[in-house]
């Protein structure tokens, strides 16, 4: 689990992570918001259903695929949070 240890200045906004309302700094990506509120898998693979979580946080591995505002297969580590954004774990969605 990840905790906020340095509070960079900036606005905070409300998002919904796996159905739970949270407030997160606007500087977070969707993947960062997920890691700050949940432990364990953030997606299951479409092939074997294996549990996965963000690996690189820089846009190369595609392990952070999330369902964002109803759209699956979003690269969570490249998507900044927005007010009201609904971020969900991805359950074995078809690959992009």
């Amino acid at each position, binding site marked *: 689990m990840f905790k*906020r240890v*340095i509070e960079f200045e900036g606005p905070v906004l409300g998002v919904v992570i796996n159905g739970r309302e949270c407030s997160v700094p606007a500087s*977070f990506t969707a993947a960062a918001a997920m890691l700050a509120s949940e432990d364990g898998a953030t997606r299951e693979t479409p092939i074997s259903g294996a549990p996965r979580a963000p690996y690189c*946080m820089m846009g190369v591995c595609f392990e952070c695929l999330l369902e964002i505002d109803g759209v699956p297969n979003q690269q969570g580590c490249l998507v900044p949070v927005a007010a009201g954004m609904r971020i969900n774990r991805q359950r074995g969605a078809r690959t992009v």
Partner: protein
Amino acid sequence: MASILGIFCAANFGLRTLLTMDTFELAIVGAGPAGLAAGVTAAALGLRTVLVDEQPAPGGQIYRGIEAASRHPDSARVFGEDYMAGADLVRQFRASAVKYLPLSQVWQIDRDRNLWIRGANGVTAIGARQVLLATGAMERPVPIPGWTLPGVMTCGAAQTLLKSAGLAPSGRIVLAGGGPLLLLIAAQLMRAGNPPAAILQTSTNLRRAIAHLPRFVSSPSYVRKGLGLVAELRRAGVRIERGVGDIRILGETRAEAVEYIRAGTRRREQVDLVLLHHGVVPNTNLALSLRCEHEWNDAQHAFQPRTHAGLGSSVEGVLVAGDCAGIGGAKAAELRGRIAAYNAATNIERISTDARDRQCAPIQRELRPHLRARPFLDAYFEPPRDLLAPVEDDVVVCRCEEVRAGEIRRIVTEQSCPGPNQMKAFVRTGMGPCQGRLCGLTVVELMAQTRGVSPGEIGYYRIRPPIKPIALGELATRAQEK
């Protein structure tokens, strides 16, 4: 299939927009030290310049989040002076006339040097007379048993979370692997309040490195920094286990423990998070998709675009600078970015070759000491053989398509499979969304080791655009709006 349709659709869409498309003298991809320095230099030379980058703010991975971080009193203490030095470069960039497109992914550059971009406004295209690829580096994949489990990420990922979001892992952290960044990131996590339980360092290769030692010790800052980090970690009681081998991560649905062998004994650590790292490799997918010729760098165990003295690639009008052209570190990237900008200006006859040479001579001199330490570091931290190509058959190599080392080895020995492109057809390695970024080098090393040849002889995947998945809908909607 989707990607074929995507390209077809892009071509269609292209015809409609090319006439009105914005055109620049220089387009730079990547906002790390190379891209930023190139942008600042090019703009000062009067080149109409655009810089496209995936992130929301300039800095690349090395200076990730530097603008926000530099306004916080804890940053200098946690991240150190090398990181803070990035603030100045970013300030210069912001003050320059470069048109900056953040949060924008370049998914294709065509042979006419049109850049196809997905950004805040959907899909757009821009044209450029010169293109500079400054796509930086990524961490070398560390394919070991259990590396796909939640609770395992790269050291760089943890560092990114700290720099960009101020997030640090809680619980029991173990870092494993090798390379200079391993200790730096361990120290940063410690300064942020959660010292790692242990650092597991793979065997270093002093025998291979010794010839480069004199040049290395003549670059005093590297030696001083390395020793400083070890001392700092030791003082804080962080355990550094050296000469570790056979690292494996155990757990069902998440990482629970890490096992390793040291001094002939198998040991085990309970963990909440394992951070892996074994150096960085050039991020070459964009250069590969442009069909730039690449060469195998045996010292760095990676492919890099072939460049000539002017930092031009084998493709007309396409330059490469920074770590994506071969690992040299942040400062070297910045200097090479400046050299690339002068060359781009010469290529379009904005400045004479004489003026370029005069300007570049002092930069080349400044570059030399930064490159002097590299051969020692490359050799000393050479990844162990079993990390380049997993020995155990059931280690996942291609994370996207879930292909294991044993399957790849079996194809090499039982089938006629000349290279990684044919491997795709057999087992789908590299066919997933990451397009081989996380399996390419491992597949090549596996094939090379099984056959007993150099990875350079095996070659690499052919990468086709789009280099980032792009939904057909995104193109279609955009085309209709026009």
